[in-house]
């Protein structure tokens, strides 16, 4: 249920008119206040009707989810650091809720040959389930290992030309939509709504960036100098190689790799032009060689 500024509940019928501002939206995930409750994982699965991943106990930490997948669009990482206690912060656990980064220049979107992956009016990246044909090229094109193919049941409410309602479709590519279906109606994404510590914050991206910068300064002042932002603005770790600022960015307390995030990732499409040029030159040289061989004979 959504409340207006004065605390009154807004009727559902009015929600549709509420956020048509089309301002860029995003997530600020402040891992310094994450308590590892996994409410975001559960809320995401519930809202998006994603199936359970079964009961697999990893045995290495409280992290039994392990990574983002086609059916898990929020993943809480648990990093145990024996003996690394800090006064005023968590003692020796790092917890971080990972999610699709909704990159400014998204590898998955650029790779998609069907146009199923689109940039929305909120500057987020969404896969249209009724267009995707499951070619899978977006999967290795994501520098953060987010997108994955999965055969998911299509919710009965989804109607499309394929009439897949109620069936299992795919395997098709799936990932976080930044709850497009909620945001378009002016409601915050399910994970942000469920987060009990506001570790996951949703809002206009500019406002989130300003808030995150203040938060880092605040933590530094409180004696936690290792706090930094991952992907908030150009030049931060995670924004390299033409990817640009991430619309879902993070406040981290250790190296990106500790959280299984790349330090300086590259946009895979940077390799397209060099590849074509080198291939064309080779083809030209071999073609000329073959032509000479036939001409001499």
């Amino acid at each position: 249920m959504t409340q207006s500024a004065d605390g009154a509940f807004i009727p559902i019928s009015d929600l549709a008119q509420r956020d048509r501002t089309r301002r860029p939206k995003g997530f600020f995930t402040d891992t310094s206040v994450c308590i590892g409750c996994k409410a975001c994982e559960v809320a995401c699965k519930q809202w998006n009707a994603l199936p359970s991943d079964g009961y697999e106990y990893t045995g290495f930490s409280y992290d039994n989810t392990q990574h983002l997948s086609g059916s898990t669009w929020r993943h809480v990482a648990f990093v145990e650091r024996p003996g690394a206690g800090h006064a005023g912060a968590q003692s020796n656990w790092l917890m971080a809720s990972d999610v699709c980064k909704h990159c400014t220049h998204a590898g998955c979107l650029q790779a998609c040959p069907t146009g199923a992956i689109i940039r929305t009016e909120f500057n987020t990246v969404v896969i249209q389930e009724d267009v995707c044909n499951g070619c899978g090229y977006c999967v290795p094109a994501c520098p953060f290992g987010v997108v994955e193919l999965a055969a998911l049941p299509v919710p009965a409410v989804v109607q499309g030309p394929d009439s897949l309602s109620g069936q299992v479709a795919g395997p098709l590519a799936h990932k976080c939509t930044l709850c497009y279906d909620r945001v378009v109606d002016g409601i915050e994404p399910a994970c942000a709504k469920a987060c009990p510590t506001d570790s996951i914050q949703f809002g206009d991206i500019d406002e989130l960036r300003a808030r995150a910068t203040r938060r880092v300064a605040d933590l530094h002042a409180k004696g936690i100098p290792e706090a930094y932002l991952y992907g908030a603005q150009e030049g931060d770790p995670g924004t390299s190689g033409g990817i640009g600022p991430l619309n879902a960015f993070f406040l981290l307390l250790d190296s990106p790799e500790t959280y299984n995030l790349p330090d300086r990732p590259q946009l895979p499409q940077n390799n397209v032009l060099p590849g074509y040029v080198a291939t064309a030159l080779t083809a030209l040289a071999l073609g000329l060689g073959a032509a000479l061989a036939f001409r001499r004979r």
Partner: protein
Amino acid sequence: MDPTPQQIAATQGPGTTLPVTDRPASGPGAGRDAALTTVTSQARGSYYGIAPIKKPHWQWEIVLYFFLGGIAAGAYTLATIAEVFGDRRHRPIVRAGRYIALPCLLISPVLLIKDLGMPRRFFHMLRIVKLKSPMSLGTWGLLAFSGFAGLSAVAELAAQGFGRGGWPARLAGRLPRRGLGRAGSFFALFVGGYTGVLLSATTVPLWAKNKYLLGPTFISSALSTGAAAITLALAATGQDDDAALHALEEAEILALTSELGFLAAQGVHAGPLARPLLTGKYGTIFVPGVVLGMVWPLLAQLHGIRRGRRTRRGRIVTSLGVLLGGLILRWTLVYAGKDSADDPAAYFAQTRGE
């Protein structure tokens, strides 16, 4: 002073168990944690050894398509070169090249569509053109090449007198054979090479690292396997005229040399990233594949040229070797690449700019 977690981790592999006795005796939680029997430690650059990226799902269908697409591209292009630069003696080469390309291109889309998560949506690829997506451009390139290859094969059949007198043959006979071949060869070369670019334009460490080399390797292999397919077809049907085949064999020598050169460059450039390709289960196939499919045929060809002629059986055997080598090359490159994507250290080595 107590060791920091990083120092502890530096001595431990990911996910290794650290005996309680080795843990710091002081610090917050030390006493409480002593109740636990084991604790997992973290090495830098690894989150419990879980891959930070996802590998593609591609299986044998894609490997076989890369192989058949390469043969079609090589055979068609060499046929065009023989048609434009050769003379009457090279006519069988032209014909064989056109006839080989078509069936390969008839099988290819079946393989590609079978690989899709929802095959009946394959035509969604034809909604858009995306220059930065080799998958998108490749779909269009393959479509165009298939069209040209189909027309070329039909025109070739008509020129040979098939269906003489009927209106389809008369229509096909009016097709501009040479013009079709020249235009089609552009798309053929694209299909032969884009697959390497497609693999490079991913986060897969082994492929991305070799962005300048994978496309050239694939186009070289396309031409060598295309030449081998033509030679095999001509030798098997008794049309292996030495004078005609010499030029083709020289072109094949060139392609094999280039292929070997680019493969060596890949191995050197990729360094430790090439480990899944050169060692382990793929190494035991890749290395013999290179010897059988490239080094040995190359030596046999050079020897044949020095002697002035080659035997029919020799041609058949080396051609089969080149074809098998081309298949092994693509199979091992695809699967070793997928293995490299499972290795967090390989990806993080790339994203640290190492």
